[in-house]
């Protein structure tokens, strides 16, 4: 496998709103900036570009290109080799990237919760189904039940409906009371009210249930129907897809691997978005789930600071402060209700990679014990799906992160072996 080496003054990991903003702000100061992203095109999840371009992503990318930022898509960072050196897989190449300053903009993933039948094909994340449609799947004429929690549900339902899906119902686990309080907090935000009005217009006639959640999914080989709890009663709803996500979980694996300090599962940062490691910055969802506007502002601050112009970042502090309040309101409004801990049955699979059931995990005492005894979290996703679940179900925290943080090819792992056992590799004639 060919190895490519690159050097940047500022390296940004992640091409969503925070990463694009960080790269753009850093590049304003004439430093060499590189941006790596795992996806086929920049934009992240919210500005995902698939069969159609996204105008927000496009305009940022144009800015980056004219500023000479090198954008490396399809590039997955899997190891931190030495100080200021990351290793990544890029298509069929191994990439070694040196940097002076690093901005982590690794975004978030959906949080999934287990219930009987959640592993059936066509039971997907809400953002997951939206991504599949943006990536070329035609949802026209399909009946979709949207369930879970968080503002993403409405956005996804509206998007799918605009692409001619039939939305059977939207089931939000939060109560009407907590949504109402959230609504009042939005009255101060004209842009948010406008967004909400637009969503409601797209979703005219779609039933929206609060205090409602999926109890089980049924089907033989693929989804046929979903049982939901609504107003204390269980109803059966036939559908082709269940789009189901329980808000978001931040992607903190790379930050943890580097040794950045985390608090309550979030990357700790100072005024200019610098982590506990000097020269390593973090922006967007890994510092707290706050949505696209906050991600952009944090990215701008991190980008200026990483280019050594932290003073310029000051003008963004008041707006960041305001947007963080909104993030706090999100957390409170969409906090998961305890009933959701009771959905999994004994035979419900929690770890999808290794097919570890709820009954096998329930008797374990910690994430580490579960890994050792059951292989939970030891498959290719490395606990990215089951980790946030076991945290909610059992209160376990994921304590150790070791490279590779994503599964890598044997050839790439050979490069890791050379770091620790150079004599051994020389003996075997491997260079």
């Amino acid at each position, binding site marked *: 496998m060919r190895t490519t080496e690159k050097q940047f003054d500022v390296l940004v990991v992640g091409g969503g709103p925070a990463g694009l903003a960080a790269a753009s702000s850093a590049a304003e100061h004439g430093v060499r900036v590189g941006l790596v992203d795992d996806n*086929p*095109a920049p934009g992240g999840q919210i500005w995902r*570009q698939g069969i159609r371009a996204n105008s927000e992503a496009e305009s940022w990318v144009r800015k980056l290109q004219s500023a000479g930022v090198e954008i490396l898509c399809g590039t997955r960072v899997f190891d931190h080799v030495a100080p200021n050196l990351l290793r990544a897989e890029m298509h069929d190449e191994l990439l070694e990237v040196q940097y002076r300053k690093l901005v982590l903009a690794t975004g978030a993933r959906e949080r999934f919760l287990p219930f009987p039948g959640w592993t059936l094909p066509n039971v997907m994340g809400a*953002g*997951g189904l939206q991504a*599949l449609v943006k990536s070329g799947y035609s949802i026209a004429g399909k009946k979709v039940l949207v369930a879970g929690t968080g503002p993403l549900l409405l956005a996804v339902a509206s998007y799918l409906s605009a692409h001619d899906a039939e939305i059977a119902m939207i089931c939000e686990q939060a109560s009407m009371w907590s949504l109402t309080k959230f609504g009042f907090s939005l009255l101060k935000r004209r842009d948010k009210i406008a967004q909400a009005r637009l969503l409601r217009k797209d979703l005219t006639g779609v039933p929206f249930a609060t205090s409602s959640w999926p109890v089980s999914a049924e089907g033989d080989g693929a989804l046929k129907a979903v049982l939901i709890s609504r107003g204390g009663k269980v109803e059966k709803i036939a559908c082709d897809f269940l789009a189901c996500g329980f808000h978001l979980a931040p992607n903190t694996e790379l930050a943890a691997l580097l040794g950045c300090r985390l608090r309550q599962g979030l990357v700790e940062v100072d005024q200019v978005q610098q982590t506990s490691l000097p020269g390593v910055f973090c922006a967007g969802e890994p510092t707290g789930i706050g949505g696209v506007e906050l991600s952009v502002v944090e990215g701008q601050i991190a980008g200026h600071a990483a280019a050594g112009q932290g003073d310029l970042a000051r003008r963004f502090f008041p707006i960041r402060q305001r947007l963080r309040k909104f993030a706090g309101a999100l957390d409170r409004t969409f906090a998961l209700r305890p009933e959701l801990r009771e959905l999994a049955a004994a035979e419900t699979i929690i770890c999808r990679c290794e097919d570890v059931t709820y009954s096998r995990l329930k008797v374990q005492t910690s994430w580490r014990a579960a890994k050792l005894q059951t292989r939970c979290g030891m498959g290719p996703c490395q606990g990215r799906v089951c980790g946030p679940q076991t945290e909610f179900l059992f209160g376990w925290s994921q304590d150790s992160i070791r490279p590779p943080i994503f599964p890598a090819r044997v050839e790439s792992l050979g490069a890791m072996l050379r770091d620790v056992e150079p004599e051994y590799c020389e003996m075997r004639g491997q260079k």
Partner: protein
Amino acid sequence: MSDEIALAVNGRGVQMPVGATVAAAIATASAYCRRSVSGEPRSVLCGMGICFECRAEIDGRPHQRSCQILCSPGMRVSTPGQNG
């Protein structure tokens, strides 16, 4: 049409728009992606390269994350079967 890509999923021809991912092609062909270690059919969950449920054999290479790979003309995708 020039903005469509022809590929094969489990030997069946599928037309996808330019920019489509292999995961979208597998779903369009009503196939599932893989079987789990205990034999359950599985398909895309996260759609963003995190969950590894969309792994499939693409042009002879096994275990590729189909949601992160774009369709290309003449591509051959192989999965264990069709949705029930």
